[in-house]
């Protein structure tokens, strides 16, 4: 059977466009045929932009200049502001919000003439690990429709896994790119804090949020990162540090690369089958000439409780702007302004968002600030110091991305603490502001397993190098879910 265009990677599409074998319109039509075929099962998208996508593709074809990613389709998590295209952040409070400006990350892709296919489902305000907290509907894991795709960028992960888009952007505050990438068997990169501008990305926890890329392979990820990375005057926390050409690190050479695996990341209720797959991957690295050693990150177990004070505290401040005045839902019955605030927020926010606003408000409130918020910031320092110490002697840290494979829809909707545990291996990396990546490294009972690669600050290049070497010596990234369709 001939390969369909929707199955191809970004770099494969680039090659065919450059050789004039195909047009952007053909790619976009193939993508929408695929979406119409599988979307009622997977439910990755909140909004589809078929008409404008076809129009953009035709204009690009007419101009006939296929440089960079011109004419290649993309998906955006519905957290990125897109001028003139509804941006909900997965929330009822923003169900009718149409931004007047673009996020810097998506704007850089627009400038290169990537074609927006649609906006992807997510947990409300990026708070969740299953995409079940979306105010609209749940997304399904393409590998098993009864299971979650992970979250909060679940729609981005499922869309790439189901061949609905060749790549997508997401955001990661505590694992929201890496965990769904792991659950859906795709490549997910969360760069160093400050590497990609957060301008126009609806804020959850500003000291932790970072924009990143979902892709079908490591090369695609590197080439999209080349485009979106770098300083932005509109985001004062974006770093003015030079961005190397990430694709130049894809040489497959890991001889002498020093890889550490932290013993703490192989405890904490990590499934035995997952531990085994990561150990196998480490053996592969040794085979390829890397040096692999066990290390300790002694404060690992404290990252999650500290995160669940820092992130909600920042969220409670960020989400104060949703007051029913300038945008979003308003309770029109309220008679005075304070009850308008309180009622609009009560009706517009879902449970998990309310819970985190309450938790954060409490942690910041008079009398509790030192005991909770300040304490968490001190522990955050200890966690960052742990990593710093290991990176004096090593280039990359390797661990499982998640303790388990994708769980079933509805399975973890009861106790919030249970679902928070999904992030136990990804949260520490956000707390330390480091780059982290998840790549497919095997299957457990038919479900994808992800390996997490953690790097030094602003050294995404080494992660791409290590990830590419593993990928090119394995075939997990070529596996596709059956999806029950032809």
């Amino acid at each position: 059977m001939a390969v369909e265009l929707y199955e191809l990677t970004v770099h494969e599409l680039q090659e065919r466009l450059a050789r004039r074998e195909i047009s952007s319109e053909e790619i976009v039509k193939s993508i929408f045929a695929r979406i119409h075929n599988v979307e009622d099962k997977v439910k990755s998208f909140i909004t589809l932009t078929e008409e404008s996508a076809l129009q953009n593709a035709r204009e690009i074809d007419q101009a006939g200049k296929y440089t960079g990613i011109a004419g290649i389709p993309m998906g955006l998590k519905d957290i990125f502001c897109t001028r003139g295209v509804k941006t909900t952040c997965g929330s009822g409070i923003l169900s009718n919000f149409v931004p007047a400006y673009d996020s810097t990350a998506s704007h850089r892709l627009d400038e290169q003439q990537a074609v927006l296919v649609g906006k992807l489902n997510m947990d409300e305000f990026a708070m969740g690990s299953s995409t079940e907290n979306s105010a609209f509907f749940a997304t399904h894991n393409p590998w098993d429709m009864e299971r979650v795709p992970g979250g909060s960028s679940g729609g981005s992960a499922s869309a790439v896994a189901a061949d609905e888009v060749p790549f997508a952007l997401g955001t990661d505050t505590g694992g929201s790119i890496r965990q769904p990438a792991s659950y859906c068997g795709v490549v997910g990169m969360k760069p160093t804090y400050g590497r990609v501008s957060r301008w126009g990305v609806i804020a959850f926890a500003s000291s932790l949020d970072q924009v990143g890329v979902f892709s079908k392979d490591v090369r695609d990820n590197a080439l999209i990162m080349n485009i979106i990375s770098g300083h932005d005057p509109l985001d004062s926390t974006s770093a003015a540090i030079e961005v190397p050409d990430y694709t130049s690190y894809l040489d497959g050479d890991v001889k002498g690369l020093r890889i550490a695996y932290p013993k703490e990341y192989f405890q904490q209720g990590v499934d035995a089958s997952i531990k085994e797959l990561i150990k196998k991957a480490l053996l592969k690295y040794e085979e390829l000439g890397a040096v692999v050693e066990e290390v300790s990150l002694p404060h690992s177990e404290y990252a999650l409780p500290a995160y669940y004070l820092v992130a909600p505290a920042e969220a409670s401040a960020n989400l104060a702007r949703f007051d029913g005045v300038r945008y979003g839902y308003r309770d029109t019955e309220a008679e005075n302004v304070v009850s308008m605030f309180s009622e609009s927020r009560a009706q517009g926010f879902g449970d998990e968002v309310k819970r985190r606003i309450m938790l954060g408000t409490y942690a910041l409130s008079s009398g509790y600030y030192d005991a909770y918020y300040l304490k968490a910031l001190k522990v955050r320092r200890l966690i960052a110091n742990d990593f710093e110490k290991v990176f004096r002697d090593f280039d990359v840290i390797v661990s499982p991305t998640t303790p388990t494979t994708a769980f079933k829809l509805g399975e973890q909707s009861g106790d919030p603490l249970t679902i928070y545990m999904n992030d136990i291996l990804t949260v520490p990396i956000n707390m330390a502001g480091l780059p982290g990546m998840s790549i497919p490294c095997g299957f457990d009972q038919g479900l994808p397993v992800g390996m997490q690669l953690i790097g030094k600050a602003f050294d995404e290049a080494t992660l791409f190098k290590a990830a590419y070497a593993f990928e090119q010596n394995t075939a997990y990234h070529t596996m596709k879910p059956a999806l029950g369709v032809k």
Partner: protein
Amino acid sequence: MALTIKEVEHVAMLARLSLSEDEKKRFGEQLSSILNYADTLNVLPTDDVEPLTHILPVKNVFRADEARPGTPREEMLANAPLADEGQYKVPKIM
């Protein structure tokens, strides 16, 4: 520690969230359990640890104080639930 309904009501007031009686009870229990989990941090001695508030070594980032074109008023007001005469309209404050 367990949060009392009174404490939950106080936090909800600070957060400008109107809660039903059922929510107060449920959130009270859930927040108590999360805070108990957070208390595990107390085993770590941190008196001499500098809090990490920001991961990058940047402070006060300034730009030139120059006027630049902004988004037109009508475009910004287009998302307002209620606008009148070029301004946001809200219920009475006093």
